[in-house]
């Protein structure tokens, strides 16, 4: 189908003012937050309802046109780059918080609501929406569900998948289905809610999300411990958990990351230390105070060179906000920033940190590592000069080795960012041929014409 003809048919569904075909409009939807991936779509549409989403998908299936759903485009795996052109389906018009129910401990939102807006709406009801990915100020709930976003509270509370109760989903063939719902217990049929969570827009388009909320903890506090290196910090985390404490937050940053974050946020962090561990807990105030004191003590017993506790809630918030901007702050060090998301079983954390340092040195690369120490999730981030193609090649080789090391230690190629186009080449190493084949059969069952996000999962 010609572009103009396709745009005309789409205008018939969503209205002409919500269809874009100008070159400049296509250019801005050619990429997301992932470097090195860019491809222009043929048309961009902004549907205003679930019915419109379903109608667009039905048309796309009839005409075999690729469709790439997109929220804020803040993902880091090129999951929303339209590698095969076609339609970019932007869900930012569907941005209503439909309901926050205190008695039922849940909220119902449209997919274009930002994670922060949902968190704020929950907080206004003295409730907590737990998943808090680093990009929460911009990322959308729909995108979070589609990539099963993680965050800073993984160890104690889990990740997005643990909080999705139900979905409304437009299927590529044009039907609207509802999975799950307002129920904590529901085993009627396969757990499609979980299957769709993390499906990266390859099986269906999420048009409504019902999420579980928890009562807001009475107190939340954080503290900071400094170590000689990441590996020592990793061993201290093991000791903390071994001592029977499950911190709500347990993040670490190496020296490179601390310097970059301090440069932006000016919090007075010690930029001389080799590694920083940001820990926190929530709950009843006296329990939190005791927990933080105990974590600080265990850290000191296990090599911490200094421990400080945040004085108040505002200082805690500042520390967490600074941690969330580690990645963009790191990008100050070079014109190209490539980050990864390797994850290992937590006892392997120290070993993995050492291996990353070794790989970086061997490939002569600047790799800053930060991540979620509590759940073994590391973000080794390579900062380099975009024009240095030889260094870019070396970084690809280094990341190949980092993924290899993660798998060898019983881990995975991505903990929370997703596979997208960026990590698809490594997926076989993680899943094996049989499982990959099963993924393709599942994909075909949902999307017989193969229109949804081609070149990604299930391709």
């Amino acid at each position, binding site marked *: 189908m010609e572009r103009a003809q396709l745009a005309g048919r789409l205008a018939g569904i969503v209205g002409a003012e919500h269809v*874009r075909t*100008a*070159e*400049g*409009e296509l*250019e*801005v*939807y*050619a*990429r*997301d*937050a992932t*470097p090195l991936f860019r491809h222009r779509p043929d048309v961009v549409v*902004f549907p205003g309802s679930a019915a419109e989403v379903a109608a667009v998908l039905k048309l796309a299936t009839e005409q075999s046109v690729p469709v790439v759903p997109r929220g*804020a*485009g*803040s993902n880091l795996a090129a999951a929303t780059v339209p590698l095969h052109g076609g339609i970019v389906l*932007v869900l*930012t*018009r569907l*941005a209503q918080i439909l309901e926050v129910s205190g008695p039922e401990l849940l909220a119902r939102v449209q997919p*274009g609501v*930002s994670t*922060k807006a949902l968190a704020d709406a929950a907080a206004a009801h003295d409730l907590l929406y737990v998943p808090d990915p680093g*990009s929460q*100020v*911009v990322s959308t709930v729909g995108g979070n569900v589609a990539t099963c976003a993680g965050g800073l509270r993984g160890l104690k509370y889990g990740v997005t998948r643990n909080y999705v109760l139900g979905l409304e989903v437009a299927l590529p063939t044009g039907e609207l289905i509802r999975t799950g719902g307002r129920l904590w217990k529901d085993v009627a049929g396969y757990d499609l809610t979980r299957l769709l969570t993390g499906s990266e827009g390859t099986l269906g388009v999420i048009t409504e999300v019902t999420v579980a909320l928890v009562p807001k903890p009475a107190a939340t506090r954080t503290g900071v411990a400094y170590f000689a290196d990441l590996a020592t910090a990793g061993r201290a985390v093991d000791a903390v958990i071994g001592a029977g404490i499950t911190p709500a937050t347990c993040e670490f940053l190496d020296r490179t990351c601390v310097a970059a974050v301090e440069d*932006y946020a000016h919090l007075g962090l010690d930029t001389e230390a080799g590694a920083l561990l940001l820990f926190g807990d929530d709950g009843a105030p006296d329990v939190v105070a005791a927990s933080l004191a105990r974590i600080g003590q265990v850290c000191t017993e296990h090599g911490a060179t200094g421990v400080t506790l945040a004085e108040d809630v505002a200082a805690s918030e500042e520390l967490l906000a600074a941690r969330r*901007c580690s*990645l*963009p*702050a790191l*990008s*100050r060090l070079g*014109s190209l*920033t490539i980050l990864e998301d390797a994850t290992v079983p937590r006892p392997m954390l120290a070993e993995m940190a050492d291996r990353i340092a070794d790989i970086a040195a061997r490939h002569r690369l600047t790799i800053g590592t930060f991540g979620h120490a509590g759940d073994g999730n590391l973000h080794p981030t390579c900062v380099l000069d*975009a024009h240095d193609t030889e260094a870019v090649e070396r970084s690809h080789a280094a990341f190949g080795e980092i993924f290899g090391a993660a798998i060898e230690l019983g881990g995975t190629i991505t903990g929370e960012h997703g596979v997208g186009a960026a990590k698809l080449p490594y997926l076989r190493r993680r899943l094996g041929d049989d499982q990959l084949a099963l993924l393709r059969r599942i994909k075909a069952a949902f999307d017989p014409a193969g229109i949804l996000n081609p070149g990604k999962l299930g391709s």
Partner: protein
Amino acid sequence: MADIFDDELLSRCMSCGFCLPSCPTYRLTGEEASSPRGRITLMRALQDDRLDVTDPTVLAQSEFCLGCRACEPVCPAGVQYGQLLEQWRDTEWRGRRRPLLARVLMAMMSWFGMVGITLLGLLRGAAVTRRGTPDAPHLMLGCVERVLYPRVSRSARRVVPALRAPAVQGCCGALHAHNGESERGRAMARRLGRRLPGTIVTTSGGCSAHLTAELGTDRVVEFSAWIAAGNGPDPASLRQIRLGEDGKPLPPNASGGRLARFGLQDSCHLRNAVGVWREPRELLRRLGEYVEVPDAGGCCGAAGSYSVLRPADSRAVLAPKLAAIADLDLDYLVVVNPGCYRQLAGALRGSRTRVVHLAELLALSAGG
């Protein structure tokens, strides 16, 4: 490769998108092209010849952007968007591609316009020829302020009589820099710096940002920051403003009445580029009951000449702010920039909330 942008500045952006929620035009549309990240993608496409300056989206977005720079303080990567925007418009807005009204406005600001503005400043008492203490800081009178709000400069001089305010100052060039003539704008700032040697105090947030960028923070200081730092009357000794039953301010030291209730609208460039936002709040807390307006740091839509060039978009940006202000039931909405003054005074005409410049309140407190 086109040579429009400084490559180093352009490569700072890693496209994380943290700027999106801070951008007033993205909040209006939800479209990538009208976000800071999207506009930087367009700039990159220009620089790499994937798009050219005649592309309609590129041209439209260069005009739609308010230039408020709210994206800068929230950017962890340190992208200097304001500079990129100036470089973009320098090339984009050449000849007929420059918005017609911008051409008219710049023509008005030419030599003849400046003569008129200088005379106006004299006639309406913004400027003084003899008063002021030798070696005291200079008060910059501003172009827009001399035309629309000469009482702001008069008030500033009432608060600090030592300030020198000669009539012949010229224009700082901020509007030129925002309208596709950044080199000329910088030259004008340097010329103003030569005409007003020593410290320059300005009551205009927009001018302060442009002048500071060119002359440095040791030469240029915005009025509220200057007063808060103790250069005028001791901030601790400021008298509170009380209102009578008719809502009019009572004379200083009068008892009775009620404390005036203030909100503040930040000046975007003062807040986002100069980093001054605590200071006016500090002063207002001393003058009466201070209430934080939701999104006070977000642009009111005035944005330099934007409200003149794009009145409909300007009103759309302002609309949610008006609703928030109405809810607060303020006596005074305080501004620190003449553009915001005009925008909000127009929108709040007939409302019980009066729009005033902080200098006017300080003068009121001092008994002027």
